[in-house]
């Protein structure tokens, strides 16, 4: 569990997720003189302006030049600084992908990439600014730890954990406000250990990021109204993945749905599918997410509805998977 101030819901009414990141970064900056912040003309958008004001000599703005941004961060890390590098997730993973791979991951630079505006959260900006493939790209990069926090409190914990853990990190957060999942930041965050948000025995929904709240809402509705017992797992760490939580869900609920604000190819759904396939155990499985198309323009909440990754989409998917009587299907190999 990472140390530091405990943030509670009182703070959350005024601060967006990225603003929590900004606060946590200032806190780290005060404690550790080697912490530096870098951005590519997105200091305001990524909410690290407070750090800039407090520590102007430790704030580097390279202009709109993401490749240089990541190369510089690697260089600073190599000489003993701990750089927090902020830009939009789309540019962090693709525009500067070679630098992320070669300079930061291959070079094992102790650099922390804070990729904001994840998924479709920059709704109205459209597909040029939606990051729907960053998890696919970053998951395939060796040496990289990937966290997709579900709310502001988890973001604070992820930032602190990234500082405390040597090596490259990719932390993917949304633009704007996220619904809160936890009453405070003090809930026992542990890197690589998924959080069970809701107990359940019929089916498991594994989610990350903003979809975790949607999954919890869906589970509460289904339990209260339809008597379906839905386990909800918040898979905040995408790499290393909590395999044990998945294996347990396979044997205990036999049905799994993944939900993410990302292409269904390459992200959380793919990661969970790999684990299921490797166990060799039968399991009904569905991936919710962006179904391999470029997303449209609109409010984030509308886009989540269109893509079927909000609570309504999850409820529909749970009903469908629960209704699929796979155990009586003649073609179904129940046990391998």
């Amino acid at each position: 569990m990472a140390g530091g101030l405990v943030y509670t819901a009182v703070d959350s009414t005024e601060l967006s997720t990225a603003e929590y990141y900004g606060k946590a970064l200032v806190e780290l900056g005060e404690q550790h003189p080697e912490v530096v912040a870098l951005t590519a003309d997105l200091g305001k958008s990524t909410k690290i302006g407070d750090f800039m004001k407090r520590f102007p000599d430790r704030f580097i703005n390279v202009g709109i030049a993401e490749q240089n941004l990541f190369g510089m961060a690697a260089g600073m890390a190599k000489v003993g600084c701990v750089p927090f590098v902020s830009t939009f997730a789309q540019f962090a993973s693709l525009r500067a992908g070679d630098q992320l791979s070669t300079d930061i991951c291959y070079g094992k630079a102790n650099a922390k990439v804070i990729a904001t505006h994840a998924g479709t959260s920059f709704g109205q900006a459209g597909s040029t600014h939606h990051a729907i493939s960053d998890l696919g790209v970053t998951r395939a990069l060796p040496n990289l730890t990937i966290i997709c926090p579900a709310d502001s409190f988890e973001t604070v914990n992820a930032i602190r954990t990234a500082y405390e853990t040597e090596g490259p990190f990719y932390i993917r957060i949304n633009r704007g406000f996220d619904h809160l999942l936890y009453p405070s930041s003090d809930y026992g965050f542990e890197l690589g250990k998924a959080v069970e948000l809701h107990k359940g025995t019929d089916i498991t929904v594994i989610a990350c990021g903003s979809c975790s709240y949607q999954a919890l809402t869906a589970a509460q509705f289904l339990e209260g109204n339809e008597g379906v017992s839905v386990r909800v797992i918040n898979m905040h760490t995408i790499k290393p993945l909590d395999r044990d939580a998945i294996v347990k869900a396979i044997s205990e609920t036999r049905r799994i749905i993944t939900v993410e604000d990302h292409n269904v190819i390459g992200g959380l759904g793919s990661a969970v599918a790999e684990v299921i396939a490797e166990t060799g155990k039968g399991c009904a499985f569905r991936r919710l997410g962006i179904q391999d198309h470029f997303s449209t323009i609109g409010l984030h909440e509308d886009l989540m509805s269109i893509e079927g990754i909000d609570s309504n989409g999850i409820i529909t998917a749970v009903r469908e998977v629960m209704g699929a009587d796979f155990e009586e299907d003649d073609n179904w190999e129940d046990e391998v």
Partner: protein
Amino acid sequence: MLTKEEWKGLEDKVDQLRNDTLDTTYWAGSGHIGGGMSVLDILTIIYYKYLNFHRDDPTWEDRDRVVVSKGHAGIAYAPLLCDLGWNDKELLKTFNLTNSPMGMHLDAAKVVGVDASTGSLGHGLPIASGMAMGGRVLGKDYYVYCITGDGELNEGSNWEAFMTIHKYNLNHVITFVDRNHNMIDGPTEEVMPIEPLSEKLRAFGMRVLEVDGQSFPELSEAIETAKASSEPVVIVCDTVKGAGIDFMENNYLWHYGAIDEGMYEKAKASLKRYHEARLAKVEGK
């Protein structure tokens, strides 16, 4: 300025390293010998005259850094890093072989003395800028020597870095351009013209020095000017691709090549003649 004795010492050292590079290429069967030979004088004078480092502690945190952004020069850089005693010279016989710690583009995690794993072009200068910026934040005054290729300057990331070096006046980054005029597909001015290079660099806020990159006295003067400069300096080093091996010189086809025994013997003889001619210059002949 170099004394005559220092100059002669550097000539002997670079002759040894040219031969080691040729040997390594021969053992490996092939390699980036053209650009290896062009950059060796730059590497030699940095390491054997100017670099502030401890031979017995290659990771000393206050050391000057070297970023060989033209990572394919590994075949020339590796012999130097062996000569310093940091890596076993016998490893050169395994260069490019399966499971060797040494290959085409040197891995900083495996080869002692490499400050950044390069190979993908256009990465070194941003890394070097970060190292210099980090030094400033941490209150250290080391220098970062960064060597880029000339074809490599096609990569936009270099120009992003030049803008940042100018903005933050990172005068502890000393950039060398190994201007050997050739890249894989042909002469630089045919594949993608970079001239007028010095004018472009000046427009990006750099102080530019133009030298003969195969002349130790000229390199020496430029490096001393760069270290004393309040502005960031780029040293454009006019070099010969394949320098010292007559049948490779100025031929882009020798960017990467294979040598058989016959070629090896001819190359050895050429290097000997080249060294003698350069020693004659030291003697003012």
